[in-house]
């Protein structure tokens, strides 16, 4: 989905406020939220794709104005409701107020994922172009590389395709690659000696 989490290259966010060290958890609720998500994900057997998609489905305004651990809490509560562990009414009653959850899944579940791909289609040094498409569900293909051409610099392991596992029990595994893009190819701004590596599943790529 072309949603707010897909931040690469977006403009207008201003400075990065950093400090060399900070507490692992600033407040106790952050640690609890983190642990609760682990427990919920385990209880409902959520795949990595389903977990990430439950954050990505947050209202964009809520996403941008809440911290990472509020994202995790929202994901935990959303998955708990969607899998029938708790109800929204119970959450709101216990919280004594509103309990914003992520929006519904809009993509259809994948019924037939097709056969696994066990052999890489591309090798180190190959030129590849990223497919230009806009899926309605979860994907790990960032918008800023779609339609762009890069070079394969590493062939990595074979992994479950997130776009499929996020939407039901079906699974397909494919090789993954690290693809290097010249920053000028991405942004057309004349930057020199800057390269961006993005790790991509096989089906995100085509021959240019």
């Amino acid at each position, binding site marked *: 989905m072309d949603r707010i989490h897909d931040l690469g290259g977006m403009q207008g966010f201003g400075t990065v406020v950093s400090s060399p060290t900070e507490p692992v958890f600033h407040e106790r*609720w952050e640690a*609890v939220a983190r642990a609760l998500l682990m427990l919920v994900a385990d209880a409902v057997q959520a795949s990595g794709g389903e977990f990430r998609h439950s954050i990505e489905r947050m209202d964009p305004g809520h996403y941008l104005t809440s911290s990472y651990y509020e994202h995790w809490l929202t994901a935990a509560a959303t998955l708990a409701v969607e899998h029938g562990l*708790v109800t929204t009414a119970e959450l709101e009653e*216990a919280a004594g107020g509103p309990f914003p959850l992520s929006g519904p899944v809009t993509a259809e579940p994948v019924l037939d994922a097709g056969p696994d791909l066990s052999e890489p289609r591309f090798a180190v040094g190959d030129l590849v172009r990223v497919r230009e498409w806009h899926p309605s569900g979860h994907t790990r293909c960032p918008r800023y590389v779609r339609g762009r051409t890069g070079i394969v610099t590493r062939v990595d392991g074979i992994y479950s395709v997130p776009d499929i596992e996020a939407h039901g029990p079906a699974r397909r595994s494919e090789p993954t690659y690290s693809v290097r893009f010249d920053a000028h190819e991405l942004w057309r701004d004349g930057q020199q000696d800057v390269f961006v590596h993005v790790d991509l599943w096989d089906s995100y790529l085509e021959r240019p």
Partner: protein
Amino acid sequence: MSEHGHHHPAPPSAIERRVAALEALLTERGLVPDGFIEDVTRRYEAEIGPMNGARVVARAWVDPDYKMRLLANGTTSIAELGFGGSEGSNMVVVENTDAVHNVVVCTLCSCYPWPVLGLPPSWYKDPPYRARMVREPRKLLAEMGCELPAEMEIQVWDSSAEVRYLVLPQRPGETDGMTEAELAGLVTRDSMIGVARL
């Protein structure tokens, strides 16, 4: 101050009430094992953090064979020092040189090599860093205090699939007499993300 004149702790915030609500409901359903929350919290506060990555870097600085193995296979070489697991089972280590600077980001969420760096700092997870590091890394690095020579090549690594990245910073000068443990003390979290040089 309450109406009775005693000091009371601040009432819980909306987010604290929501977390407590989910915790209570899941506990009621038997889904929160005793001590689980405290245990996970303690591990990430005390055992898993950038001090682990610093040991990997210091070893690579003093042992050329280890460094070769580390760059060839990050996962198994990091496991030699006892680190691995969630978000670290497929590690790639990228080396800074006089000519090349590496920096790591996750534009889609907040992927980060937990076993060697711990949990990510807030700024790594917030929109400005994720939006800008792939678009204008030289400018953003300079803003963050890491000014690079104009001719230095920059390699940005967006952790968008299963690999997690660790930057191997260059060993600082005038450290010849230092022990491996002393060297580890020089290695910062930011130098292993790639937003600082040592």
